[in-house]
């Protein structure tokens, strides 16, 4: 419409939880009252959670941001003539000028916040489906070659070289192959999968299609955790848009390639983020671990060769096809190539999504981007990589974020979740929580995890209560050994990581627990 002013209000879980829907409604109704013609566009989030709800107004072709907005601010914004970019105490200026965003390497998240996530037009006007188009003109070997050259490793947490996984599935014999996307994102403090699926869903769709081209799969499944209802809504709309515009289905855009995607919802189980439990759940069975070998790449979903990849892994693919694997590999260090979408959470001043090339240090992430703790107190511990990740003390914050550098310190990068704790944290309680989490989320199949986690809680309780403390510390260490070496999967196998790191770096909390009476 002529002279209609574009106003962007994010439709994304964290923004909506902070009132973005009500703010959008209020803006619309006040605009109607003022007889001002506005077009409300529900974009994704830019990932600067501390500024949400962050709204933007398009003024002379530029987008001016205001945030964080609450419902009471809306009337004021109209008074300040925000629709013409008027000054207001919450005016932020251009989003792209904000250092938090400016200093990132947004490879995967380049369109998040920028576009209307379910608009095919927006997607295609911003490089969308270019990667797929390039891939349709390549041999399967060439596509896989680009992925190998990029050095892309699984972003779900295991860090397995994506090119090798695709090669294995491409080489496997089978009358049917599948692409299975793991969107279970159960790690504490993580939200990158969610933000990508809510902010740029077609990017994931395109990545899955390219994977299908590479390995010979014509069907994809996405396993989305049940705790993401808005993501389900938005992604379902995107799937329908893609189908209507002929980007999914038979003979896509006349290429002869066929691809369909099913969105499957989980049922509240962390362990279904483990690939074999996820496959069991996709098949309609209980989420129980399958032993490996055979690898899902050979015998996966319904027994067929299956690529199982995380959301961010797949969403990184389209640009690798457009810009080339060599380009992706110019980012990062050593064997950690490309970028990772780190998620800053916990006791942090400026929490949010920070996509950066590997090699940045934990300190730079937490202090330069994150601004330190939200409470202003000293940082005491940081858990990286989810609930199965080690806790690092302050003196390890200069470690560069790199898969192998972290492994050397008995830590993990995992899916990139960084949860910050200040000096009020009780690390014995955190160690207990690690066992408790395992005890709740265990699939129950193997003994070290099913029974070991329960005993772990009880033994830590005795240590903290000073009941035969030394013997129980020794027993805890042996239990950790049994779980690490005996468990069927990483649920039990890695629960000892945070426990051991707590004992190693914060032994005082076990001897003189902050809350204990002795």
């Amino acid at each position, binding site marked *: 419409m002529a002279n209609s002013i574009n106003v962007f209000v994010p439709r994304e879980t964290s923004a909506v939880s902070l009132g973005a829907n009500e703010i959008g409604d209020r803006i619309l109704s006040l605009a109607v009252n003022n007889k001002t013609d506005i077009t409300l566009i529900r974009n994704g989030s830019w990932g600067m959670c501390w500024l949400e709800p962050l709204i933007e107004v398009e003024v002379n072709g530029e987008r001016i941001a205001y945030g964080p907005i609450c419902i009471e601010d809306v009337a004021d914004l109209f008074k300040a003539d925000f629709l013409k970019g008027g000054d207001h105490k919450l005016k932020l200026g251009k989003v792209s000028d904000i250092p938090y965003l400016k200093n990132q390497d947004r490879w995967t998240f380049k369109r998040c916040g920028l576009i209307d996530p379910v608009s095919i037009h927006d997607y295609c006007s911003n490089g969308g489906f270019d990667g797929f188009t390039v891939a349709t003109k390549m041999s399967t070997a060439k596509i896989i070659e680009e992925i190998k050259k990029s050095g892309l490793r699984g972003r779900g947490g295991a860090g397995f070289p994506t090119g090798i996984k695709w090669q294995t599935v491409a080489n496997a014999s089978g009358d049917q192959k599948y692409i299975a996307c793991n969107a279970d994102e159960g790690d504490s403090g993580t939200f990158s999968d969610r933000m990508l699926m809510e902010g740029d869903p077609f990017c994931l769709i395109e990545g899955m299609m390219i994977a299908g081209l590479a390995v010979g799969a014509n069907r994809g499944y996405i396993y989305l955790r049940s705790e993401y209802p808005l993501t389900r809504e938005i992604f379902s709309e995107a799937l329908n848009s893609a189908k209507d515009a002929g980007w999914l289905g038979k003979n896509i855009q006349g290429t002869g390639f066929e691809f369909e995607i099913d969105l499957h919802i989980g049922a509240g*189980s962390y362990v279904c983020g483990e690939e074999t439990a996820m496959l069991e759940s996709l098949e309609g069975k*209980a989420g129980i671990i399958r*032993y490996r*070998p055979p690898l899902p790449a050979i015998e996966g979903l319904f027994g067929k060769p299956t690529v199982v990849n995380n959301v961010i892994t797949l969403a990184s693919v389209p640009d690798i096809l457009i810009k080339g694997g060599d380009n992706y590999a110019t980012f990062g260090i050593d064997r950690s190539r490309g970028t990772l979408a780190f998620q800053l959470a916990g006791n942090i001043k400026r929490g949010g999504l920070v996509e950066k090339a590997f090699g940045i240090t934990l300190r730079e992430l937490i202090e330069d981007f994150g601004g330190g703790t939200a409470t202003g107190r000293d940082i005491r511990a940081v858990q990286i990589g989810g609930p199965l990740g080690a806790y690092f003390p302050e003196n390890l914050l200069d470690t560069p974020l790199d898969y192998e550098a972290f492994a050397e310190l008995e830590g993990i990068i995992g899916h990139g979740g960084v949860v910050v704790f200040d000096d009020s944290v009780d690390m014995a309680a955190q160690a207990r929580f690690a066992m408790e989490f395992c*005890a*709740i*989320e*265990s*699939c*129950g*199949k*193997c*003994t*070290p995890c*099913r*029974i*070991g*986690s*329960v*005993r772990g809680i*009880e*033994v830590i309780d*005795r240590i903290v209560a000073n009941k035969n403390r030394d*013997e129980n510390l020794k*027993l805890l260490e*042996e*239990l950790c*050994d*049994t779980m690490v*070496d*005996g*468990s*069927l999967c990483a649920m039990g196998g890695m629960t000892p990581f945070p426990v051991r790191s707590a004992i190693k770096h914060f032994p005082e909390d076990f001897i003189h627990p902050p809350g204990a009476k002795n």
Partner: protein
Amino acid sequence: MWNEVRGLRDDVDYGTPPSNGEPVTLTVDGVEVTVPEGSSVMLAATKADRAVPKLCATDMLEAFGSCRVCLVEIEGQRGYPASCTTLVAPGMIVRTQSDRLAKLRKGVMELYLSDFPESEIPDGWSEFHRTLEEIGINGHRYGNGRNHFDLPVDDSNPYFLFDPAKCIVCSRCVRACAEVQGTFALTIQGRAFESKVAASQDEPFMESECVSCGACVQACPSHALVEKSLFPGGYERAEPT
């Protein structure tokens, strides 16, 4: 007859079902053994007279890999793979005994013992008890923690009963009902420590789809599922001494 043809004995439980395939030769504890392709390391080890302790494996059922007792060391492979779910490969070098393995097996059995009625340990004669002896452990250091001792016995069926206190959740009964009998009456209900054997929709056995074939009773290694005829005066758990 088929066992004879395959060079296997009828009176030995090889842990996993036999297979037909090209011969594969590997070494177990220095002993060379040849088995068909598709055999598990557990079967090969048993054939070589170097049997690995086990609980959830039995050769009338497909491998499951849940008890974590049968772990071995394989040269060139990281960690401690389960011998029941690992297939043989030509030239594989397997070790079934080591200090590390002994410690691991004791660690696993100790966890089982922490949720098994103590009074039932001394005079037991089930496969579970034999495995405890084989591994050399009969007690645990975990005190009185969470357990399943208060779950009621299901003696609805005239021929056998189910005592959940002695269940080690190895799923052999569930798998027997599915793979051997094909009735699929049993399942593991719940998750994590709450996992328990349930008949149909968690009903008494007699009211469920169970057809009293006894495959689960035959499969159970801990006498949680056991024939009533073994207890002429009625079933009672052993008194604590």
